[in-house]
């Protein structure tokens, strides 16, 4: 062995180690460190479950606060110096990365808040849930920063694998198991497709670095684009699965319905943000030169998502399923932004990337709010989310009905809510880019989807004759809905955010706009 080493030694050149830029990875390290600390705490401290639970919550919030602080620092750094690359070009620190990471981190915090009460009600393990949520968020944050397709893939898998476990977290409930298995099989399928896309793109361009790909495509005219375009298509399919864009949405309703509700809330918001962050970076960034090749495909995906999201949601009788289908529709609206990603970058026009980022932020808040209300409404065993369970809610629980109405109106796109501004921004960017057809289809979908949301609102405000008859006959009234403190804080924050983003959107829109202009060079 030593002899072999001695022979091999002169041949091998020294390996250049990348400079470790700690502030760049500090948010990720803080989140991962907190998750690891929770796992170790759970393993080592066995005498007091209460102590472990309390400390894990403190650790989780400490990790998230540290990450948020470093993100804030990164944002200022990026604003001063512009976006930059580090870790030998594998990681990008720029406006897009910071914005998406902020959305994901916020979704994680709200998911933890919602999860606290849920875990207590369902008698599940709190430390494991927190550790998995933090690990999942770590993967998503890396994905937002990734500037190399292999890093994108590893990040995608880190958060996907954590999400498979989280979907199946409530192991005693068969629905949760089933959601985990279905998500796992289809998720692994989509990951494999995404990976094949990476391999083909690597074969066509000779590199997996996103910057390298852009440079290669700018400097070389390919005589045979088949390999490259096949790579694009497979990458788009793989990420299309993750953002739940039609026709790759088959898993969405089942998984969203079966997964524990706080996980559904987190997953719907954060996965979309992370995967769309990668889509924007890959397609609007590296593949921009071939925009005429991928634009029609994204157009098709957007239209399909809008149609499936609105039409299928209209016939659902389960509120969680209905919100899952509406999540597919929202993916369609963000895809409109991707479609016109860089088209409006010049002058006073709104680039599609900025509109997409703003939409992702607003969707995160609306979705977590709506699923949060569903979680409060469900009873032990995560049951009672059929449409009929919401009948007459306005009379028995006016506060909850009001909150859900707010989130549903925001998802419809009613003025004075964030949803209105987000839809307006997406349509404006499409119109600015001259994509009138897409803007028109989007507006039609928004109008039709209003029916879906208003159906639920009307159900809540309709009198519940069954319950009143039962009460008249002296039957036991339905149990009062209890809002635990964590869910209360989460609902308050999301409701406030929906209103603030609707009434004073300019500040956030400006930040989204700036973020898209501070891309890593």
């Amino acid at each position, binding site marked *: 062995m030593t002899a072999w080493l001695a022979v091999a030694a002169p041949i091998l050149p020294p390996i250049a180690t990348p400079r470790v830029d700690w502030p760049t990875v500090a948010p990720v390290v803080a989140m991962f460190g907190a998750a690891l600390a929770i796992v170790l705490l759970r393993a080592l401290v066995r005498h007091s479950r209460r102590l472990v639970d309390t400390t894990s919550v403190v650790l989780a919030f400490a990790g998230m606060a540290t990450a948020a602080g470093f993100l804030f620092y990164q944002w200022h750094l990026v604003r001063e110096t512009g976006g930059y690359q580090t870790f030998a070009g594998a990681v990008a620190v720029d406006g897009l990365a910071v914005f998406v990471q902020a959305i994901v981190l916020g979704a994680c915090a709200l998911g933890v808040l919602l999860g606290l009460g849920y875990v207590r009600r369902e008698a599940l393990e709190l430390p494991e849930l927190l550790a998995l949520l933090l690990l999942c968020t770590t993967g998503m944050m890396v994905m937002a920063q990734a500037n190399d397709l292999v890093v994108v893939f590893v990040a995608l898998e880190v958060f996907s694998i954590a999400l498979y*476990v989280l979907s199946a977290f409530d192991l005693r409930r068969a629905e949760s198991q089933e959601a985990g*298995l279905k998500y796992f099989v289809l998720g692994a399928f989509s990951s*494999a497709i995404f990976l094949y896309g990476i391999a083909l793109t*690597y074969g066509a361009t000779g590199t997996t670095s996103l910057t390298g790909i852009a440079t290669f495509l700018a400097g070389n005219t390919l005589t045979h684009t088949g390999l490259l375009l096949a790579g694009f298509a497979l990458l788009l399919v793989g990420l299309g699965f993750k953002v739940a864009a039609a026709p790759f949405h088959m898993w969405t309703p089942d998984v969203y319905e079966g997964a524990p509700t706080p996980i559904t809330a987190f997953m719907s918001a954060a996965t979309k943000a992370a995967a769309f962050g990668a889509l924007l970076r890959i397609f609007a960034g590296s593949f921009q030169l071939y925009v005429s090749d991928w634009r029609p495909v994204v157009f098709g995906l957007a239209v399909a998502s809008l149609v499936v999201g609105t039409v299928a949601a209209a016939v659902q009788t389960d509120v969680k399923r209905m919100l899952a289908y509406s999540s597919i529709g929202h993916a369609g609206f963000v895809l409109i932004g991707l479609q016109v990603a860089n088209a409006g970058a010049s002058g006073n026009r709104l680039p599609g990337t900025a509109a997409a980022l703003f939409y992702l932020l607003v969707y995160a808040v609306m979705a977590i709010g709506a699923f949060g209300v569903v979680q409060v409404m469900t009873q032990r065993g995560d049951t009672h989310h059929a449409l009929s369970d919401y009948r007459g809610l306005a009379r028995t629980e006016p506060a909850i009905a009001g909150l859900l109405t707010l989130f549903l109106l925001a998802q419809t796109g009613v003025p004075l809510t964030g949803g209105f501004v987000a839809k307006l921004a997406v349509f404006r960017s499409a119109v600015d880019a001259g994509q009138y057809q897409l803007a028109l289809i989007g507006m039609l979908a928004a109008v039709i989807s209003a029916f879906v949301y208003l159906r639920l609102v009307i159900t809540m405000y309709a009198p519940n004759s069954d319950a009143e008859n039962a009460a008249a006959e002296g039957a036991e009234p339905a149990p009062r809905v209890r809002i635990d403190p964590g869910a209360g804080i989460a609902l308050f924050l999301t409701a406030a955010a929906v209103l603030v983003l609707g009434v004073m959107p300019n500040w956030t829109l400006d930040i989204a706009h700036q973020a898209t202009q501070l891309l890593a060079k």
Partner: protein
Amino acid sequence: MTLVAGLFDISTQHYFVVGALLFTIGAVGLLVRKNTIVMFMCVELMLNAVNLTFVAFSKALDDAAGQAAVFFTLIVAAAEVAVGLAIIVAIFRRRQGVTADDIDLLKG
């Protein structure tokens, strides 16, 4: 002799074709088979087909990055096996069967 040598002359293109075939077999198998364990093996087949493609491209391009990517794929595949089998075993403990047709609580 040149005829025989030509027959055995395996170019990188052959590897891409084998990779694509394996990937297709895996994808089709995943879609048509009912047993979750077999579906699971099909995913592994797809990942390994990609590995083959990566290594072939790495050789054709004379670039080690493709081989390094295979390491990451291997690790990810192992992690997926762990989580996937754990979920399957959890379901198996409950209902003594892992056929995809039995898993039909969620639909609408």
